[in-house]
């Protein structure tokens, strides 16, 4: 089974990298951008007998390692 995990900063957590990207976009003339938040994507290939099992397993991986839940949220997208 393939899955994609999105890890993003929680609302309210300042994102200095997103801010710098926002500034760079602005300097390139994209002055219609109101805000940029940077995140991470993980593509996983894993063995699982059901979508439900895969999702539960990946949630555990996120809680234990892939995300720092003090500052980050995660979401899981299963693909076939």
């Amino acid at each position, binding site marked *: 089974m393939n899955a994609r995990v999105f890890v993003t900063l929680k609302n309210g957590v*300042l994102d*200095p*990298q997103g801010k710098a990207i926002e500034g760079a976009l602005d300097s390139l003339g994209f002055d219609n951008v109101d805000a940029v938040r940077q995140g991470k994507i993980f593509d996983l290939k894993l063995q699982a007998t059901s979508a439900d099992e895969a999702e539960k397993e990946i949630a555990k991986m996120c809680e234990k*390692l892939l995300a*720092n839940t003090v*500052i980050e949220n995660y979401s899981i997208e299963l693909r076939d």
Partner: protein
Amino acid sequence: MKSAVILFPGLNRDRDMLAALEKITGHKPHAIWHGDAELPKVDLVVVPGGFSYGDYLRAGAIAARSPALAEVKKHADAGGLTLGVCNGFQILTEAGLLPGALMRNRDLKFLCKTIHLKAENTTSAFTNQYAEQPVFPCPIAHHDGNYTIDPDGLKQLQDNDQIAFRYCDADGNVTQAANPNGSIDDIAGILNAKGNVLGMMPHPENLIEKAHGGNEGRFIVESLVEAVA
């Protein structure tokens, strides 16, 4: 006072820490490889600075999940003194031994320079030797020292006297301008609620003799020696 230093691939301040501990305590510290799942009986465990695992995923994230850190957690949970410096601070927050998280510096630059620190708590096991001279210059060398925590967590740190060090100017004024990395409430180092774990971004191990430009970094270890005695 007996101590141990945990070693991970990618650290670069481990030898400085080992040398500083030996010089100040008079006992050779144990150097413990991260794969070793057993800690010798010691008063103090130190997680030193550097770039464990190349800062992959997040600074300190991989090291925080190693067998050695599980042992460090047991040591700390039992009340054992535990110090994390720089990457060590990041590792201790990632491992849940200290609250909050360390993010990329406000201006996105790696900072390697001397700043000033103010010991805000001068009664803890780690800081009791700073009462007479709480303000001192100290080196920093980090890319991810921008400490953050949610408002409730910050209030708890403030109310419990868990803020060990703040960034300040040479006169001891804690100001935004003196904060090198954007850290919330100008925090440079924090204690856990029980006061037996300290995490800090600056490098006291590089401030232990006159040739370093100052020896105020010794006071942390000397405070511990006092606390253990």
